[in-house]
């Protein structure tokens, strides 16, 4: 074949080659556009559903801290008042005063439902913080009931026939009056960020679950990172290559693929049933998630150790460093960014995990903010699951808001990972 002929053949094929390349690039762009589209869809749905949860309707009432209701014995003992005082009675009295024309028993009941069932607790906390309020009358913004809130946010349509509507005509009339008097408005929902779970949607918050997640992840991190890194260092640097270590390696890789609920069952059987650890506690949750995260961390850490150039190891050994010194002075610092990335990926996985935690009772309804790793608590994804399961309309937006909080958690963790990586990264 002459030179000329072969050049002609090359030219003839060129168009086809470039077409293939263009086609391939187009597939890539399409794939990226698709994923962007789904991402945007996801975020608009979540944010669109959830952003209203950050606002909460409040109702302004003239509250009289009536001693007859709160402290009938007149002893002024705060602990006693806190326990037995009829704070809800105070709220009801204030509502009666605001709408003196409502006298029918059934109507009064609907009237009382304007304020949240937890409004009494808000007043109790106010009085406990400032006992001098006793006997005085003050204007207070109280949390409104979740159905009023939903109505205010437009989730309940007033054009729907009354029988099909959760909020009745009478109540709408009151709401309009309160609005006209500037006694009803949407305020920033601090409760959502400070409270634990509640049966009343308007009183429920994410903080309990966030704290539970925090404790669980702390336990997970404290256990899985040192154990994972130590295991990786041993396997990669010290362990002899034989059937036993091969067996261990295969098993670690397999463990990474075990469905997480299996780890939950294991935790239930071992930590709770056998060792008698407390149910629903972040400690057990952390232990279970440690089991789940370990393979991820070990695999990532081993990869990070493997990627350290052998020349650095030889340099250290060549001037008489012991193996331990070589690993801890030179190899580990270079492998650290990779290990941290692995750990954060593992932690992010653990943060989003709900299935194994259902098994060990972290799915319980818990109102109190956990104070430590032994207190019963729940975690963010389980809270999301619980709220998604609740029938009240107000929980729908809270579910989305909780997802946003979870995503924010994840973004913060990933940012931390990137930061740590940048910090530890050294060129060689």
């Amino acid at each position, binding site marked *: 074949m002459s030179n000329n002929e072969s050049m002609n053949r090359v030219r003839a094929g060129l168009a086809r080659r470039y077409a293939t390349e263009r086609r391939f690039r187009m597939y890539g762009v399409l794939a990226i556009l698709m994923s962007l589209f789904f991402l945007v869809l996801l975020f608009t749905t979540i944010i669109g559903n959830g952003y209203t949860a950050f606002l909460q309707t409040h109702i302004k009432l003239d509250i009289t801290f009536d001693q007859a209701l709160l402290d009938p014995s007149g002893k002024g003992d705060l602990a006693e008042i806190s326990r037995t005082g009829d704070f809800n009675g105070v709220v009801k009295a204030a509502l009666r005063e605001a709408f003196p024309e409502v006298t029918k028993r059934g109507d009064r009941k609907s009237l009382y439902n304007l304020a949240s069932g937890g409004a009494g607790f808000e007043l109790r906390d106010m009085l406990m913080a400032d006992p001098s309020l006793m006997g005085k009358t003050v204007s207070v913004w109280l949390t409104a009931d979740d159905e009023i809130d939903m109505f205010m946010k437009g989730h309940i349509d007033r054009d729907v026939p009354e029988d099909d509507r959760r909020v009745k005509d009478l109540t709408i009339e009151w709401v309009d009056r309160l609005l006209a008097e500037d006694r009803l408005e949407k305020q920033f929902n601090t409760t959502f960020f400070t409270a634990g779970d509640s049966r009343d949607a308007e009183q429920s918050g994410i903080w309990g679950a966030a704290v539970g997640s925090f404790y669980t992840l702390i336990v997970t991190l404290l256990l899985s990172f040192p154990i994972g890194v130590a295991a990786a260092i041993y396997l990669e640097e010290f362990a002899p290559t034989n059937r036993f270590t091969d067996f261990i390696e295969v098993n670690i890789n397999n463990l990474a693929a075990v469905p997480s609920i299996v780890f939950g069952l294991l935790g239930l059987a071992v930590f709770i049933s056998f060792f008698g650890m407390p149910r629903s506690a972040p400690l057990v949750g952390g232990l279970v998630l440690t089991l789940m995260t370990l393979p991820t961390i070990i695999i990532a850490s081993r990869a990070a150790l493997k990627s350290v150039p052998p020349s*650095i*190891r030889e340099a250290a050994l*060549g001037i*008489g460093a012991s193996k331990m010194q070589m690993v801890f002075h030179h190899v580990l610092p270079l492998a650290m960014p990779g290990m941290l990335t692995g750990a954060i990926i593992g932690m992010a996985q653990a943060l989003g995990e709900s299935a194994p935690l259902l098994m060990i009772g972290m799915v319980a309804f818990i109102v109190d903010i956990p104070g430590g790793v032994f207190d019963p608590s729940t975690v963010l994804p389980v809270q999301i699951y619980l709220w998604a399961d609740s029938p009240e309309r107000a929980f729908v937006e809270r579910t989305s808001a909780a997802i946003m909080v979870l995503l924010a958690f994840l973004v913060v963790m990933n940012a931390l990972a990137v930061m740590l990586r940048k910090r530890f990264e050294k060129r060689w």
Partner: protein
Amino acid sequence: MDIAMNTTEALMSPDSTDATSVHKPVRDAVGSPLLDATDARMTCRNVNVYYGEKHAIHDVSLDIGKNEVIAMIGPSGCGKSTFLRCLNRMNDTIEGCRVSGQIQIDDQDIYDKSIDVVPLRAQVGMVFQKPNPFPKSIFDNVAYGPRIHGLAGNRTDLDEIVETSLQKAGLWEEVKDRLDQPGTGLSGGQQQRLCIARAIAVSPEVILMDEPCSALDPIATARIEELIDELRSNFTIAIVTHSMQQAARVSQRTAYFHLGDLIEVGATEQIFTNPTHKLTEDYITGRFG
């Protein structure tokens, strides 16, 4: 220059044409003048190295003389680097590598069970093919060895060790104002001199150099070669090189390896001008390799 001319002559010489594969390694005469340096620092007898099933080095006997530079040359894969790495047991790190025979320093077999590799490697230092400074400051690079071996009592001692090592490596003037800068930021030749400074900071007796100039440009190479010559007064140096000119320039004795056999060893001048073995002659005249 002399030697280079001689090499050219050898290339021209008519009787080096028939490349018979006679392949008789020099493995005779323990203590024969051929093997024995006048004042041996390390003595190797019947060293065999296996990588798993592969027999990489066959019965090599060689002495490394005190304050001499011995060059090991030979075609790729001839085992010269493998042999070099036996001398401070760097081969231990390679899985499946087995060494038999005797390598002695101070009348002690370094492969003896009682020998600890850590002090051995402090005594027999190594400089590698690719400059491999630690990703730390220049100071920390040189100070690392003295630190782990506890050679410096205090900071002043350590400063002094670092300074003298860098001076001996001919790097002091270039880096004295930026000792806290990363060693990886230096040029290739400077990095290699830093590695030499790092090796001599622990005051070894023997320095092994595994193709120390193969990644460097000719000017940096010339600097390192000069340095090797200067270091000879204080250290014993064994150097593996691919460049015959380099072997000719820096070494007093040269050993020629071929396919795991030590073919010939002798005074550098003799090897390059008047090799006794056919294979050596073919190699240095550029017939293969």
